[in-house]
């Protein structure tokens, strides 16, 4: 089994045990994807973690976009902006950095 900083990950790089997540793990995952985590990335990662805490699911990308628009404004709640932060998909890559499972319904 592969691991990141000692935390077990599945074949797609998602954490197996959600409780293993640390900021350092998120930073390492981003580094492996050639992404530099900015404050804007952290806004989305923290949002995803809060969402999971509250609802016990990783939101679908459509729901994520709408919720970010509501909380942080339309200039951030749109796919273009979110994909510029997470080129492999705000749902899939964002959730992976946030230590969440793959979004429900994400193929």
């Amino acid at each position, binding site marked *: 089994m592969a691991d990141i900083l000692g935390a077990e990950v599945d074949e797609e790089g998602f954490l197996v045990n959600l409780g293993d997540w640390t900021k350092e793990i998120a930073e390492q995952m981003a580094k492996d994807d050639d992404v530099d985590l900015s404050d804007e990335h952290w806004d989305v990662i923290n949002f995803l973690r809060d969402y999971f805490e*509250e*609802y*016990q*699911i990783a939101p*679908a990308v459509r*729901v994520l976009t709408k919720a970010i628009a509501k909380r942080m404004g339309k200039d951030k709640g749109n796919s273009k902006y979110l994909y510029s932060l997470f080129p492999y998909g705000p749902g899939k890559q964002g959730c992976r950095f946030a230590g969440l499972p793959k979004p429900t319904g994400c193929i």
Partner: protein
Amino acid sequence: MTTKKFMYLNRRSSFGTVYAIESLEVVLIAAAFEQDVSLAFIDDGVYQIVEGQNADGIGMKNFSKTFHALGDYEINKLYVSAESLEQRGLSSNDLMPLVYEDEDDDWAEKPSVKVVSNAQLSKIMSEQDVCLSF
């Protein structure tokens, strides 16, 4: 794409079997296809949306919290059988206050849960294109 009316029937309580959590999972996946989705809670299914569930003692995820996300997925028609509630000594006050934001009404929060008689429910069911029972 043509829109069909899908109804998901939930007849079993939250834990003990996988029916409740699997149904919710399917509902969330189906939501991506932008169909007309409604949920019905009948028999022990009414326990799924009772307020104050706690799964700590059985080591399972308390997925009842996920029902609060349904509004975000534009699923806002949750019908509960009045007879099933009554048979279990429950009332609408025992249920989670699930809401959605109405896009056409300046995002006003509105209740998603509707308690209906079995007669009303069977009429609603007869209007569906697809009914999936869990």
